């Protein structure tokens, strides 16, 4: 576990509270954690860590009571496991309204009721004459066109009733809304009020008057208008209590017509209730063309009519069954985490309640089911039923006068009829929204069936904001462009139907257009629902264009992303004209290799990164062509982070091609090795063991060709050497390759001798490669460096038996036993685990092309935060692999951007203390084995490192995190990730552009005690810095790659050499942090523990001095001399040592 964290000791020294600032933010916590670990051994309960459960024998084996048995049985039959049951119960407790609050809300509701009934009436006026309205209140409706027939006068409501979830007991926190239906008296309404928005105008005026009167009442804290479920024709009035209760509850007043006022047959989806003559202000066309139907308009009227009957239905079904109510509450949480329930056309809590009622009526749900089972059944139903094709109905009567489902399918994308048979409950739900719901339900079902342990967490507690759920996101901004789009798309009937809401009108057509255009590249297209705005009663209602931005999320299909071609029909087919019409000028006639002449669209994309962004080209082209939306209004967020993994000079790709070139070269080399003649043992396997060979090196190597004049030449050993008078030469890291030889009994039985024989093999290998293939080689005792096509490989010969020989121990009785030793573990890691991991991740890259990008972005970020050296390369790669192998509740990322966001989320939320991260490479671990690993983990927690990553090859030891990170470093990473994630998400979701995307990649430097500034002249990777310097030094490379007869300078990186010296010399006094990609500064943190004065010990004098303190001789670090040593050790490299002594005092 490394040295004891600083905090622990610091805590002990209470006498000197300001000895040292805690080393890192959160160190205090770590300290507690550490000390808690010690306590854990003692067996006392502590915070943060799970303890092995100890129950006495008597407790374990006592006779069970009846209740206990029932509960156990219930758990088994109604829930999956007891943990799930407890979790669900706990969640429900959290979201349910407590009784105390309920009482306060009830009191408030009674008051509201009385006050609403007391509002005075007004004299009768024309609808267009609104002068009677007082100055302080505006009509909450856009009255376009203004002229409309009819009269209005206010009368106190006939009835005020509570409707909705509050009454049913299914409302969930945090936003407690109580819906109240205010029934307008019959006298207000006139015969033909269903026509031309007259009813809605009256409804709005009614609310305005109510608002005015209630607004003068000091009893209410705030009075505002809003739209009912985002519908622009139906405002509602929001009332909140005064004073400290303001956040307690929001009461929403919905005016509704008296029952039986509207005849349902007038409101069928095929009927027109908004006359074109009135709406467009033209005289009737007279050509006899039928008026377009207004299905949405009709549905909105019907929604008001049926308000009460729905509540009655719901309360009869849900009222008696607790399980159903629990289920609805869980479903609401589920929808909420997926941002599906809000806005116009959202899949609201009301809809799922009705869905539950439907499933009860079809006997798919029984009233005795538990909440979890209800959740499961509804998800199962949603996952398997496509309401866009096969609508459902709650109506049981077989009256022939009722409209058929088919009529509804013609008018609405999604169909779910209520019990009257006239109203489509899903009238506002778009097809994309429903498909999104279905997609989520499918994912959730897979999750419930598959993962055993943390499904509750993933299903109900993990938020899925759009930016983190979808691979690419695009913002349409400003929204006013959609108005023109509506005209271009000829959507006048829809506008007439929707009362001029051009956003909703255009939405359906736009999504269909893009879905068709993206075709095989697209898995799912989703759109954000415009948020429901609230406004003050003295203001005009917000315009359509002010309702924020329209955001579309694209979930891409990785296999469709590789093609640059959109293949159309053959030129002589009739479909060819459609194809040409759809793609416009981009469509070209092309002749293919098989002789076919076809219409086709070819996109310009040379590299993987550009191919990933083809959807951007498609979207902008189609929107401009068909909807008249210029590309300045389309803000595509898909490749903004690519800049960080582009090599400093190439901006057209993100390095996948360069990595592939290196891997190809490695493949060639391994073929040469296999075919090598003259080795005493033949080569049996060649395995890559370097990040490049698993596509996760942040900056891929480029072929090098050194300019000799830049170097010292060492001709007799065919090598180049760096020169002190020149800037540091380019950094060339050899790529490690492990070469296994066929088994043989001739290997010696002694570790030292094996090393000598291996060295002989290395020498021979170099000789043969030079002789037979003319490659430049250099052999050492442990490896052979091979220069091939400008890439340098480091071939290590491995002996299979060597780890075993290192592990052999002979007991005094002569028994040979095998025990792990540090040397054997290291060897096994390098020659067995590392190649296996490399090939597994190489395979992962073939399945998920975005893996490389995500892994490199993630590593780049960790390193940019100066924490890269605390983590092994492999541990970070595995973290990223987990995002692809266990994406739940998401799908595997298909773009680096979304993968990186999820990486930040994973890092910031994973509970390392109590969970191992299981990375099930190649799906080798079964669910049972994973369970075993988890329980084994808890039992041996104290011996394991803070961060535990389990793979099928490494089930116990967590090889890659054994030597780090330190708990403080991990904690720091968690803190930074938690801070970076919201910042980055906000930037990406900003429709006006992300601003400076590199913000989250710049490290905070104010926490370090000492900063060592380095001279860029001797930083070979200076150009790779996050903020790439405008000018840097020549690094002695020729721009044209070509053969070189001298070995370039390998692995020479002065900052790394410097750091190694620093860590060796001052490792127990301080921690050192550095960004290997061109960092110009090293951050130093003193370890508080080592600054405690200590008694003299001969073994512990490093860098310390003796001083007398209170008559005693104690040892303290010799800080002044150490600060000067920092400069001495890095002579030439170090520019300045900034001791920020304001941070520490003795």
């Amino acid at each position, binding site marked *: 576990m490394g040295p004891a964290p600083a905090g622990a000791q610091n805590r002990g020294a209470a006498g000197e509270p300001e000895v040292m600032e805690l080393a890192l933010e959160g160190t205090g916590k770590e300290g507690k954690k550490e000390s808690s670990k010690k306590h854990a051994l003692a067996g006392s309960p502590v915070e943060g860590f799970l303890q092995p*459960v100890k129950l006495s024998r008597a407790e374990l084996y006592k006779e069970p009571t009846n209740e206990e048995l029932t509960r156990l049985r219930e758990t088994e039959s109604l829930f999956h496991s007891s943990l799930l049951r407890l979790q669900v119960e706990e969640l429900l407790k959290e979201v349910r309204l407590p009784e105390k609050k309920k009482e306060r809300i009830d009191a408030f509701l009674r008051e509201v009721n009385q006050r609403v009934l007391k509002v005075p009436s007004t004299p009768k006026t024309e609808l267009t004459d609104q002068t009677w309205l007082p100055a302080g209140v505006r009509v909450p409706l856009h009255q376009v066109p203004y002229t409309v027939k009819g009269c209005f006068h206010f009368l106190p409501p006939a009835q005020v009733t509570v409707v909705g979830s509050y009454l049913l007991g299914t409302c969930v926190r945090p936003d407690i809304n109580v819906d109240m239906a205010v029934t307008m008296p019959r006298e207000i309404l006139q015969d033909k009020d269903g026509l031309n928005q007259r009813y809605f105008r009256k409804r709005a005026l009614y609310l305005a008057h109510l608002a005015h009167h209630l607004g003068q009442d000091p009893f209410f804290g705030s009075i505002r208008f809003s739209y009912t479920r985002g519908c622009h024709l139906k405002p509602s009035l929001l009332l909140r209590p005064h004073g400290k209760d303001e956040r307690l509850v929001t009461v929403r007043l919905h005016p509704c017509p008296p029952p039986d006022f509207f005849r349902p047959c007038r409101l069928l989806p095929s009927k027109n209730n908004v006359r074109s003559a009135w709406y467009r202000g033209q005289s009737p066309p007279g050509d006899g063309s039928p008026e377009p139907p207004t299905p949405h308009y009709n549905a909105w009227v019907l929604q008001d009519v049926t308000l009460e009957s729905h509540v009655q239905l719901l309360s009869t079904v849900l009222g008696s069954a607790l399980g159903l109510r629990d289920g609805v509450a869980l479903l609401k*949480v589920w929808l909420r985490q997926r941002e599906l329930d809000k806005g116009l056309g959202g899949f609201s809590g009301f809809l799922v309640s009705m869905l539950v009622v439907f499933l009860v009526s079809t006997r798919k749900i029984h009233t005795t089911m538990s909440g979890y089972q209800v959740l499961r059944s509804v998800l199962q139903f949603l996952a398997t039923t496509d309401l866009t094709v096969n609508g459902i109905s709650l109506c049981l009567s077989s009256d022939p006068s009722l409209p058929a489902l088919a009529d509804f399918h013609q008018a609405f994308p999604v169909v779910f009829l209520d019990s009257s048979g006239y109203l489509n409950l899903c009238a506002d739900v778009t097809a994309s929204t429903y498909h999104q719901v279905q997609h989520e339900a499918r994912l959730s079902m897979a999750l419930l069936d598959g993962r055993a342990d943390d499904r509750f967490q993933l299903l109900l*507690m993990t938020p899925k904001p759009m930016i983190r759920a979808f691979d690419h996101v695009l913002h349409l901004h400003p929204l006013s462009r959609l108005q023109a789009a509506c005209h271009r798309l000829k959507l006048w009937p829809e506008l007439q139907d929707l009362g001029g809401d051009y956003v909703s009108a255009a939405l359906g057509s736009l999504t269909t257009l893009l879905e068709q255009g993206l075709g095989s590249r697209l898995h799912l297209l989703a759109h954000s629902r415009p948020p429901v705005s609230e406004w003050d009663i003295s203001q005009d209602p917000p315009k359509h264009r002010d309702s924020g931005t329209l955001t579309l999320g694209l979930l891409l299909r990785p296999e469709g992303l590789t093609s640059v071609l959109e293949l159309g029909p053959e030129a002589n087919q009739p479909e060819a004209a459609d194809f040409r019409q759809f793609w416009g000028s981009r469509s070209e006639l092309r002749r293919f290799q098989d002789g076919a002449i076809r219409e086709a669209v070819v996109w310009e994309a040379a590299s993987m990164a550009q191919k990933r962004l083809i959807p951007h080209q498609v979207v902008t082209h189609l929107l401009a062509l068909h909807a008249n939306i210029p590309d300045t209004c389309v803000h595509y967020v898909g490749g903004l982070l690519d800049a960080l993994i582009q090599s400093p000079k190439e901006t057209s790709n993100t390095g996948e091609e360069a990595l592939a070139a290196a891997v190809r070269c490695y493949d060639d080399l391994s073929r040469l090795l296999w075919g090598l003649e003259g080795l005493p043992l033949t080569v049996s396997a060649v395995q890559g063991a370097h990040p490049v060979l698993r596509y996760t090196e942040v900056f891929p190597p480029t072929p090098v060709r050194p300019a000799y004049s830049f170097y010292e030449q060492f001709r007799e050993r065919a090598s180049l050497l760096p020169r002190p008078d020149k800037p540091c030469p380019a950094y060339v890291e050899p790529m490690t390759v492990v070469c296994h030889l066929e088994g043989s009994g001739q290997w010696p039985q002694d570790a030292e001798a094996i090393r000598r024989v291996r060295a002989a093999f290395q020498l021979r290998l170099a000789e043969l490669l030079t002789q037979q293939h003319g490659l430049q080689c250099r052999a050492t005792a442990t490896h052979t460096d091979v220069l091939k096509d400008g890439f340098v490989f480091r071939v290590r010969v491995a002996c299979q038996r060597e780890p075993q020989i290192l592990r052999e121990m002979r007991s005094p009785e002569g028994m040979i036993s095998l025990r792990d030793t540090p040397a054997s573990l290291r060897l096994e890691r390098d020659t067995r685990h590392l190649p296996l991991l490399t090939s597994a991740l190489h395979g992962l890259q073939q399945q998920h092309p975005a893996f490389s990008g995500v892994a490199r972005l993630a590593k780049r970020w960790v390193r940019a935060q100066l924490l890269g050296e605390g983590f092994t390369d492999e541990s970070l790669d595995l973290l990223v692999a987990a995002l692809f192998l266990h994406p739940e509740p998401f799908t595997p990322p298909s773009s680096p951007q979304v993968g990186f966001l999820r990486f930040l989320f994973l890092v910031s939320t994973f509970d390392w203390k109590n969970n191992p991260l299981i990375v099930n490479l190649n799906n080798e671990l079964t669910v049972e084995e994973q369970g075993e690993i988890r329980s084994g983990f808890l039992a041996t927690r104290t011996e394991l490192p803070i961060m535990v990553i389990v793979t099928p090859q490494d089930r116990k030891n967590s090889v890659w995190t054994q030597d780090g990170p330190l708990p403080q470093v991990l904690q720091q990473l968690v803190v930074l990730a938690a801070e970076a994630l919201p910042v980055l998400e906000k930037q990406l979701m900003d429709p006006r552009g992300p601003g400076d995307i590199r913000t989250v990649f710049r490290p905070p430097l104010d926490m370090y005690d000492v900063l060592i500034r380095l001279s860029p002249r001797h930083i070979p990777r200076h150009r790779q810095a996050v903020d790439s310097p405008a000018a840097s030094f020549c690094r002695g490379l020729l721009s044209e790659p070509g053969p070189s007869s001298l070995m370039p300078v390998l692995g020479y990186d002065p900052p790394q050499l410097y750091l190694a010296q620093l860590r060796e010399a001052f490792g127990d006094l301080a921690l050192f942090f550095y960004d290997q990609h061109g960092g110009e500064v090293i951050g130093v943190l003193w370890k508080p523990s080592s600054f405690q004065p200590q008694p003299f010990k001969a073994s512990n004098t490093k*860098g310390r001095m003796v001083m007398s303190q209170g008559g005693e001789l104690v040892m303290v670090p010799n800080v002044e*001399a150490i600060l000067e040593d920092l400069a*001495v050790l890095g002579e030439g490299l170090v520019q300045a040592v900034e001791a920020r002594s304001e941070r520490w005092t003795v």
Partner: protein
Amino acid sequence: MVARRRKRGERDSEQGIPSPPGYSAIPIKFSEKQQAFHYLYVREHRVREGTKSSWPQKRTLFVLNVPPYCTEECLSRLFSPCGPVQSVGLQEKPELADSPKEPKSKFFHPTPIPGFQVAYVVFQKPGGVSAALVLKGPLLVSTESHPVKSGIHKWISDYTDSVPDPEALRVEVDTFMEAYDKRIAEEEAKAKEKEGVPDEEGWVKVTRRGRRPVLPRTEAASLRVLERERRKRARKELLNFYAWQHRETKMEHLAQLRKKFEEDKQRIELMRAQRKFRPY
């Protein structure tokens, strides 16, 4: 911190440098340019009666806290005013019973990066030690006449040294393997000689090389045998046969469930503490 340290520095110059009992302190710094000193703590190298030490008694000076840039040559130069220095040994930790020193191969045992080390300075005469104990210093590691490389220059020279010489490596490997083969051959010959010959008590050692090879004496082999035995026994056992056995399995199942339940409860408690149940 710095301010106080400086004040104390002044005081030190008046009173002499504090040093732990038995040691004397010698200030040392890299070169003239540096302001602050490190302190070498030195005493005569002594070991308890009877224990062996590879360093000669009386003539050896034991030095603590040698800074990383200080090499063996450098120490030998710094202490030569006290008397002619015979040899200097630098190592990471003070070791009394020194392990037998083999000449380590530079190819197979690369020298580690130095941190703060301890040194044993062997003088040719015992007088050197006493002279060193009263050495006032301050010592300078790098002077104009004897510059010590550090930083870029050191790394470049290290890199140059690390470029291997394949011929030398080959020669070393060959000599080592020759010696090794010879040793093994000798051992085998000896073992062969003893094969089947009873020792003085009449015991004959049975080895794998004999005509009838026996099980190797390894832990794995013995575990395998035990496992086989265990399985044989398990096959014969009757499970859920008697009523009490039946009752016991049921009870065991219940106990398992209870234990799981307790575990889950604890988990929930923890999650509640971490506010893991707030879906907002």
